[in-house]
């Protein structure tokens, strides 16, 4: 008989093995799902995971991986800091929206003036916007002990209403014939977050994501703050004895996560998306939660997980169009990834034991 036995220490090997096993399990279960839908599972899996990287048109898809992955990585890095310390910011989507609105707002305010300083100002405004939106749950938690999960999540819906209001009112393109949506920042050189090398997919958001990965790595391994974060997450009581101020930690973790999410929104609105529109946000803030856990809350893991997630999006679209797979099947496939990860994660803290039932 099989028995689960708690490990005295979480298994180091399983921490890193779990995502790999989860990906393989997703491929198998997903393949079965595709087969049930009457598609060749091997072709479907190849279309999702292989074609974007190595097919005839990979020159187009590879840069797209960076475009799709950068906001995920940027947001997930910020979230992981808080998650490590047991501070649960679920509202990155809202911080992403507000960052985009602040960044775009600064850019639109200067239109049509040209100047080198406009884009840096937008970057600052984006980070500040996201930071300020995250400060609401942070301050409420520190001052009144509210639950940051609920407050940050609810603020996503407030941010969405704010976005709709901006797209329909204040930021509406005056030359847009009354239709909602702002001017396209791609056509405003000083505010455009253009590709740094044409055709590479590299824009400032990608650079920022990479810097964030390195920054987070150094912070977590070399800096006292990183130590405090880890200590608070693993042993809150010990952390208090070690002189960690929990309130300060909440402010820092939520603030950093908000600023990074705000930056992601700002780079997106000024680059790939181009304009503030009612449906500007597409769920990066929520997907980033999956990315953070898939990446084991480790900066390098998050980088890999972000790219993997981007791959399933891009490959999923190709599979829809080439094989006629329904979008819901692709979404299920992505959902399975988190499901299997959480399931396999049991192995990190428990081990399987083969036991013989003793005769009573």
């Amino acid at each position: 008989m099989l028995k689960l036995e708690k490990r005295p220490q979480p298994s180091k090997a399983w921490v890193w093995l779990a995502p790999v096993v989860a990906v393989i399990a997703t491929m198998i279960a997903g393949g079965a799902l595709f087969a049930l839908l009457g598609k060749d599972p091997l072709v479907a899996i190849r279309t999702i995971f292989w074609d974007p990287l190595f097919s005839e048109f990979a020159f187009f898809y590879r840069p797209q991986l960076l475009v799709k992955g950068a906001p995920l990585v940027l947001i997930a890095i910020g979230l992981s800091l808080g998650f490590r310390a047991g501070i649960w910011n679920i509202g990155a989507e809202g911080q992403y929206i507000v960052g985009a609105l602040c960044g775009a707002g600064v850019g639109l305010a200067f239109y049509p003036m040209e100047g080198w300083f406009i884009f840096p100002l937008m970057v600052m405004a984006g980070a500040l916007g996201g930071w300020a939106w995250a400060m609401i749950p942070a301050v409420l938690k520190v001052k009144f002990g509210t639950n940051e999960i609920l407050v940050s999540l609810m603020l996503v819906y407030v941010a969405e209403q704010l976005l709709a209001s901006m797209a329909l009112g204040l930021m509406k393109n005056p030359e847009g014939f009354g239709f909602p949506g702002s001017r396209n920042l791609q056509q405003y050189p000083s505010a455009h977050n253009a590709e740094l090398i044409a055709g590479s997919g590299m824009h400032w958001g990608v650079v920022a994501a990479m810097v964030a990965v390195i920054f987070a790595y150094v912070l977590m391994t070399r800096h006292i703050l990183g130590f405090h974060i880890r200590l608070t997450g693993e042993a809150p009581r010990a952390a208090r004895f070690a002189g960690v101020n929990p309130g300060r930690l909440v402010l820092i973790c939520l603030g950093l996560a908000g600023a990074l999410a705000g930056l992601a929104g700002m780079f997106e609105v000024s680059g790939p998306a181009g304009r503030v529109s009612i449906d500007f946000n597409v769920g990066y803030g929520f997907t980033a939660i999956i990315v953070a856990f898939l990446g084991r809350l480790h900066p390098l893991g998050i980088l890999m997980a972000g790219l993997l997630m981007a791959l399933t999006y891009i490959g999923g679209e190709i599979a829809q169009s080439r094989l006629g797979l329904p979008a819901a099947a692709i979404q299920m496939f992505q959902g399975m990834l988190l499901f299997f990860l959480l399931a396999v994660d049991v192995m990190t803290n428990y081990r399987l034991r083969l036991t013989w039932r003793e005769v009573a």
Partner: protein
Amino acid sequence: MKLTKLLTTAALALGLATGAMAQDKLKVGFVYVGPVGDGGWTYEHDKGRLAVEAEFGDKVETVFVESVPEGPDAERVMTQMALDGAKLIFTTSFGFMDPTINVAAKFPDVKFEHATGYKRADNVSTYSARFYEGRAIQGHIAGKMTESNIIGYIGSYPIPEVIRGINSAFIHARKVNPDVQFKIVWAYTWFDPAKEADAAKVLIEQGADVILQHTDSTAPLAAAAEAGNIIGFGQASDMGEYADGPRVSSIIDNWAPYYIARTRAVMDGTWTSTDTWDGIGPGMVGIGEITDKVPADVKAEALAMKEAIAKGEYHPFTGPLNKQDGSAWLAEGEVADDGTLLGMDFYVEGIEGTIPN
């Protein structure tokens, strides 16, 4: 610019490589904003796609991607379709406008058709339907049928298209029932069954016994059926499954004739960039079966109005009409011009409340 070149070369190479095959098989792509099973907007576009397949059989191959977010994702999906050899691509949501223009610039040989937008290019056409013509008929039926004199209206977003529909319905409801009032709720979504049902319930609680909707799911009709003694209309699609219950008629988007015509134009090499805004006359807007719940005389009047609109004898926005603030808009007998209608951002006189922005 390197990417543009690369893409064009690739498209060209592909065009050459599959040239012999492509001669008898045209690949047509469809980009949808919602799921094909939404029962409304996207469902009808997909019916148009199936009609293209039925019409041309082996001569076409259609591909589609559903639930595509508006923005960079849409741009990638369109590019992917063009790379895979699609020669005609329909992008069926307003928010796909800038992505369509961007991708079209990279693939000059591919024709694009964008629904409900206003930006065109040499290889980008736009098309939309005059849904407000159907709204006039709805308003007439609603005004005659209401007993509480309160008509509920579920708006999606306060954009010209939706405001036009509200105005058209209101004008014709008031015309037959001077006591009628409109209560408008904004759902801020095109498709969200839960939100739409909530909106319908709120309106019913406020006394509305007719629900008009400008959102795409059947949830408002389901809510009306649950409440009982409420009538509603199918939106974008016939929603005939509610014909035994609250649904008394519907506005149907019929894209099939247009999609077939445009596909044929590409095959014949006669495709040019155009702007199409068709209504009941050419068949782009259909009026679903009016059920027996509607008294025979009201039904006859509604059908007569449909006939007059189809023939071009009657325009739903014919003066005298004032704006909400009381200022004159259209003089006696004057007909609204398309420019004003396309950018409509005001209510007509008699509607209460303000347009949110």
